[in-house]
């Protein structure tokens, strides 16, 4: 009975420590910003800052949920940024030329994203091509397609329906703070993924796939179907993020929309504790990772750090997060890290 208590306690310690670390870093970011520039937190600016963070966060969170699934299953999806761009262009074209309602645009974007993801999944499973190669290729292919279907032109705010922008501005109000609908959609997605990963067989099978592909296959898990589904889900998430992009920024540009997005999303997922070798990762972790990156992004801009410093800070934080994560890993697993020390 004593062993049971110890085992239970250690497992709880494992699970919460990494996420606690992320929460601590997020709070640290705010504290440091407050120290550097104390007046930003005065009265009326606080809701605005929180709103900025809240608006940046849903885009990353939604896609990092899908990316988390992909990475846990020991793949990677480098094409999410281009998928976002293509879905945004498609939906934008429908908005502009067919004047469809917002909800139909959302469905179209998600469906198109799912198809793109299915194409990725097909190449990976049926043709046995490593995911990094496939998504490296489709990164360019989808971005090029985004240009082609829009004839290279961007879709401006005039062509997008007004209700779309309202998703980013209106929401549920707490006191002086309005939490936009975009955030609630993202929260819903996070809860959905939490349930899937923790309580459904599909979620457990994804973890199994990432931990040991051969064993899962021999166990009877349909590895091909799960891999394709994981990429389809990521594509659908990118489609949703595309609509959020259009709502947040008010325009769709084939060259900018989603450019470089994949690196932000992958960083958020890895910082959130998902192991790049697959098999482990949590929804809470990915969510906190996205929140962390979003906070840093917004805080840097708010305390007046010139845009020139942002890239370097991003890169530095990614490296720090990797090192810290490795430090935690090493303290938990004793013997494995000893072998790793050799090479």
């Amino acid at each position, binding site marked *: 009975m004593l062993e049971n208590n110890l085992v239970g306690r250690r497992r709880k310690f494992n699970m919460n420590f990494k996420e606690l670390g992320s929460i601590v870093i997020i709070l640290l970011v705010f504290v440091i910003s407050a120290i550097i520039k104390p007046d930003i937190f005065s009265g009326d600016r606080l809701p605005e800052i929180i709103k900025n963070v809240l608006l940046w966060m849903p885009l990353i969170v939604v896609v990092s949920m899908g990316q988390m699934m992909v990475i846990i299953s020991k793949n990677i999806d480098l094409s999410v940024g281009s998928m976002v761009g293509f879905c945004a262009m498609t939906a934008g074209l429908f908005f502009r030329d067919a004047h469809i309602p917002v909800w139909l645009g959302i469905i179209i974007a998600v469906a198109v994203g799912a198809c793109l993801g299915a194409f990725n999944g097909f190449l990976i499973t049926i*043709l*046995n*091509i490593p995911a990094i190669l*496939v998504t490296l290729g489709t990164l*360019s292919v989808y971005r090029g397609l985004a240009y082609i279907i829009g004839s290279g032109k961007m879709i401006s705010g005039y062509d997008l329906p007004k209700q779309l922008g309202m998703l980013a501005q209106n929401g549920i109000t707490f006191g002086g703070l309005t939490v936009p609908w975009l955030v609630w959609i993202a929260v819903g997605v996070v809860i959905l993924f939490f349930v899937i990963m923790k309580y459904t067989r599909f979620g457990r099978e994804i973890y199994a796939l990432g931990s040991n592909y051969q064993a899962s296959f021999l166990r009877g898990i349909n590895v091909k179907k799960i891999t394709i589904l994981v990429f389809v889900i990521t594509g659908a998430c990118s489609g949703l993020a595309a609509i959020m992009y259009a709502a947040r920024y008010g325009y769709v540009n084939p060259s900018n929309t989603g450019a470089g997005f994949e690196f932000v999303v992958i960083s958020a997922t890895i910082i959130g504790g998902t192991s790049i070798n697959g098999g482990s990762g949590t929804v809470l972790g990915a969510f906190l990772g996205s929140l962390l990156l979003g906070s840093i992004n917004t805080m840097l801009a708010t305390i007046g750090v010139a845009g020139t410093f942002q890239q370097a800070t991003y890169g*530095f934080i990614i490296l720090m997060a*990797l090192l810290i994560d490795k430090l935690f890993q090493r303290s938990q697993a004793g013997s494995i890290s000893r072998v790793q020390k050799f090479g």
Partner: protein
Amino acid sequence: MSKNTVKLKNRSKLGEITRQREFITFVLLIVVLAVSLLSSKNFADISYILNATSRYMEYAIIALIMTLIIIAGQIDLSVASCMTCVATFTALMFRAGMPMGLAVVFGLASGFVLGLINGSLVAFGNLPPLIVTIGTMALFRGISQIFIGDKSISKFPKWFNGIEKLPVLKFGNTLVPITLILFIILAIGFFLLLHRTALGRNIFAIGTNKTAAIFSGVNTKKVILLLFAFSSFFAGIAGVMMMSRLLVARYDMAMGGELEIITMVLLGGTDINGGKGGILGTFLAVFIVIILKTGLMVASIKAQDQMFIMGALLLLSIIIPNIARIINEKRLSRI
């Protein structure tokens, strides 16, 4: 012997050649060359092609060292940012008063140091190279952005500008760009290193099975550290070359370059999982990319469509060998 014996297929010399990974790259090169010759008469002019190569030689040189890195099972996405970083360092030191030659030397040294950062994080920190180099990609470009801001630095000394136009070799009546000659020399050097030295065998070993390599006595930490250090070193050389060709140094040089370089390497038949590949494939793939991109430019295809075609080409170059392999396996399994 009864009919129970398996009749081995006649492994002719021709069959051996077609089974090589580089054969498909070679076929692709012929196809691309044929299509370009048909579409535009300019391609029949060797001087035109020679002039066209100088734009791509920077990426080509990095592709050579990247081949080694991918064969060792690693990856380095920070090369393009390293190019930019070294270029900006060199330009800033020159602007601060240092003579250009010395600035270049210091710039290249700093490139080596940047590579050591990558290498230590991967080899000693045991961090995954993909994420580390994604991080350093942002870090290096960010550093150059911090130092140079949005400005462009130009007005370099006369001897530095347009270094590829130095008259070193002439072919007929056209100038062979010195960068092309450098590329060929480096390609030969890397070929000898990879296929004729123990270090090259070690690189293959690390890529095939790192743990086995460790227990076979290969100093994997040292090899990986050196690979990343030299990757950034050559990226620095390429950065200085690009600065000389474009006559300017900016923080947004070589954006997206890492993907182009990896495309060159993968088109050459190198396996992304490591352990297989060679310099010959990369060498041919470089020319495929040059001819294809020049041909697309001549046919006035827009830059965005070019990106689409390059991506599709990358996919095809992997799909076709895979399909061939699957068909082959199905055929063999029927015995």
